[in-house]
């Protein structure tokens, strides 16, 4: 309501500033209908909005003034000085009420019947009544007094109206573009200065660097919009679903003021609507079911938006029935999304994510509320399209949480610059999982299945494509020495072979022209520091285009086919202090890092470390893991599709190939069980437990 009032005040101030001038002008030129129309519109807008805001006094005055103006418009009345003065009086009163509203957030008390009566005289063009208008002079005096009363005790106070300004979106966009160009220009300067050891330009360029960065961030802020503007429609949607289904649902929204780029707010709108619908329609149970389960009759949906490590997180959480993982597995197998073997061996977390696969929908019955053909796959592709990620967690019977992670802005991204067939290309860093450098004799890792090339990445088979081939560049990319860029997009992992990785840098995304846009594999282009134009690859589109998209392959061919029962696993052994050793399957590990203990910080009671430009949550693998200042800890980094986290251990011991046979089932959380590994009984780590802890327990 406060926001509405603020908008209304700002808008009215704009309208009113012209009104005095226009009315005086009209007096001089009574036949000017366009002027009259614009005056009418201004008053009409004020009337319309204040009715909506419940401002009775203002509505009454503006309504009467509007009626008089309407008579003027229809030609019943002539725009004579008398009429104009009375309208001006009404305008003065409107201004007075508005200024009171601004300082006290409420209409001032007062009686406007005199002024209203004065105006109403003009509305009845009967001879007898006109006569009374003449002796309205005394009334006028009173009305004027009222209107001219000083508005507030501190007129010098800066008002909210004048501290904000409406700016055209295109102007903001062009400012953003200009800032982007300035960044490129600065990059050129920085590169020039870096080539000379002792340049006179070094200091001014350093200044330029700082100012550019500040300017850019300031301009970026002008484009920020509260995320709440994307969920204005949701209460109504939830209410309608609740009425239609006879459920009781409460929608709680937190963090509506969290700001992000307006383009992202727009991109968020549809997925958010879809997921809230899903929660209300499929998640929350009927009142009877909830009662029977001992839950409160009213179901809750919580929307929560907040900033986290350079990202905006939006969570949709409900306390409904949750998602039945077994059911998800069954449907995924039935629809051919995964093979039976894979579905049965994957963790619950991963299985749950199958709902994002194209062709998946858990709704048993398609109701007219939710089953509109927009599935969770569309939600995911919409979010990924703007560089975000989405994840889901659920506790059966307790509810479901969907977590959307979005970048703050789209215009500037960190990227990896690579070379293929002599040309440079940029990859958005967000979709790159890892880089693997291969020498001439390491090609054995790549096998061919029909015409699909697959790379054995630890225990997974990942389809690969040579970038130069995929883009049909004349010169064939070198297969001998190359780098494999492992990307994740659309839920699938795949590798792209490039000749070499040149650099990693922040780039300004520029749109590509319409004639080049018909090719779907680019996310845009950018200009590098040396002035070169470089295309930005959209890995998801490239995967689909070149057929490495896993959904086009038979699932069994993509994932390790028919896992033999006693296949040895590669196990990573690590020490957790007091000579205790634990193991984790290497296939789950994304990377190993050595991190100085001094770089490990505490945030909100949790351990974090700054890692690749964002914060990596850490969990210690047990209480005996020690962090000694001046020494390094080994961190096992896990990547779970959308997010990473690390498990801090004392040291990495070994990697062994062993058939993993859990002999003792876990006695405590965090441990799957105990197995004989390398001849010794070793505890096997439960990665999903740590993942939940690292995330602070998404479903509590």
């Amino acid at each position: 309501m406060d926001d509405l009032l603020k908008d209304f005040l700002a808008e009215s101030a704009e309208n009113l500033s012209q009104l005095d001038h226009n009315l005086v002008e009209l007096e001089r030129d009574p036949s000017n209908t366009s002027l009259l129309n614009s005056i009418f519109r201004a008053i009409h807008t004020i009337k319309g909005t204040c009715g909506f805001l419940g401002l009775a006094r203002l509505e009454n005055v503006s309504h009467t003034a509007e009626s008089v103006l309407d008579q003027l418009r229809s030609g019943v009345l002539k725009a004579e000085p008398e009429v104009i003065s009375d309208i001006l009086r009404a305008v003065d009163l409107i201004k007075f009420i508005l200024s009171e509203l601004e300082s006290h957030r409420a209409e001032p008390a007062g009686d406007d019947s005199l002024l209203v009566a004065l105006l109403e005289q003009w509305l009845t063009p009967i001879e007898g009544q006109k006569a009374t208008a003449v002796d309205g002079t005394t009334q006028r005096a009173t009305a004027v007094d009222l209107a001219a009363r000083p508005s507030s005790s501190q007129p010098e106070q800066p008002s909210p109206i004048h501290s904000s300004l409406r700016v055209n979106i295109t102007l903001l966009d062009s400012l953003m573009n200009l800032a982007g160009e300035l960044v490129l220009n600065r990059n050129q300067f920085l590169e020039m200065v870096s080539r000379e050891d002792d340049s006179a330009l070094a200091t001014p360029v350093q200044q330029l660097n700082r100012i550019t960065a500040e300017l850019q961030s300031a301009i970026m802020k002008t484009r920020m919009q509260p995320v709440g503007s994307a969920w204005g429609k949701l209460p109504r949607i939830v209410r309608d679903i609740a009425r239609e289904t006879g459920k009781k649902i409460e929608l709680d929204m937190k963090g509506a003021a969290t700001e992000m780029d307006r383009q992202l707010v727009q991109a968020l709108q549809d997925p958010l609507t879809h997921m809230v619908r899903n929660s209300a329609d499929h998640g929350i149970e009927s009142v009877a079911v909830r009662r029977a389960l001992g839950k409160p009759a009213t179901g809750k949906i919580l929307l929560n938006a907040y900033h986290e490590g350079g990202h905006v997180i939006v969570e949709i959480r409900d306390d409904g029935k949750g998602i039945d993982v077994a059911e998800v597995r069954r449907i995924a197998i039935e629809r051919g999304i995964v093979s039976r073997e894979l579905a049965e061996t994957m963790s619950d977390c991963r299985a749950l994510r199958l709902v994002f696969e194209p062709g998946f929908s858990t709704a048993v019955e398609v109701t007219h509320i939710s089953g509109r053909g927009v599935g969770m796959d569309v939600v995911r592709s919409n979010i990924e399209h703007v560089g975000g990620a989405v994840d889901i967690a659920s506790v059966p019977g307790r509810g479901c949480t969907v977590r959307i992670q979005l970048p703050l802005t789209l215009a500037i991204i960190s990227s990896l610059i690579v070379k293929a067939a002599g040309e440079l290309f940029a990859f958005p860093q967000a979709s790159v999982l890892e880089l693997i450098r291969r020498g001439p004799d390491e090609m054995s890792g790549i096998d061919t299945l029909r015409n699909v090339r697959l790379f054995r990445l630890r225990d997974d088979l990942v389809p690969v494509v040579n970038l130069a081939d995929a883009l049909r560049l004349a010169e064939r990319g070198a297969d001998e020495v190359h780098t494999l860029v492992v990307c994740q997009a659309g839920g699938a992992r795949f590798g792209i072979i490039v000749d070499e990785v040149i650099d990693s840098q922040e780039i300004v995304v520029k749109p590509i022209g319409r004639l080049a846009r018909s090719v779907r594999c680019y996310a845009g282009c950018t200009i590098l520091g040396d002035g070169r134009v470089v295309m930005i690859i959209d890995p998801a589109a490239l995967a689909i285009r070149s057929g490495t998209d896993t959904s086009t392959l038979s699932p069994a061919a993509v994932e390790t086919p028919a896992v033999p029962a006693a296949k040895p696993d590669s196990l990573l052994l690590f020490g957790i202090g007091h000579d205790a050793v634990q193991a984790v399957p290497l296939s789950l590990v994304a990377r190993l890092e050595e991190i100085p203990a001094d770089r490990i910080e505490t945030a909100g009671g949790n351990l974090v470390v700054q890692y690749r430009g964002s914060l990596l949550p850490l969990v210690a693998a047990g209480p005996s893991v020690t962090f000694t200042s001046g020494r390094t800890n080994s961190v096992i980094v896990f990547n779970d599709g959308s997010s990473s986290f690390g498990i801090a251990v004392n040291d990495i011991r070994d990697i062994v190939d062993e058939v993993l046979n859990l002999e003792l089932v876990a006695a405590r959380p965090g441990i799957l069980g105990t197995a004989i590994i390398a001849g010794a009984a070793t505890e096997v780590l439960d990665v999903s437990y740590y993942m939940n802890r690292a995330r602070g327990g998404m479903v509590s």
Partner: protein
Amino acid sequence: MIAMAEGTDEVVTFRVGKQWFGLPVIAVQEVISHQQTARVPLARSCVAGLLNLRGQVVTAIDMHDRMEISANASESLMDVVVCDGGELFALVVDEVGDVVAVPPHTLERLPASLDGLWARICTGVVRLDNGLLALIDVARLLDESSTRP
């Protein structure tokens, strides 16, 4: 080109292969010597690449390909930068000539037998001392639907 008939009578001339073309001077932003372009793999064949014009990304159009005129090897290329629909394009041509005044009465209609592509792009013909000048409509030249994949 209605504007032409109403008296926009100056055209920038340029040569592609042996043919001279004209563009209304008002459509041309500038003429620069040919710039290094970044290739756009898989784009339509007439897209010669993207180039950086003072921080703006400009789509370069290979006029040989666009007008289906076979390319000669050793030409000194020039870029005619035009603006259409708020977007910049650089027409890569062999040579840029003078700005020629074209009084409306000298403008002749296209011959009915002209092939489909040219008939769609050109608006008229002007007879000059050294041959025919085909006038081009920028919007139609850059219309995606008439380009080859």
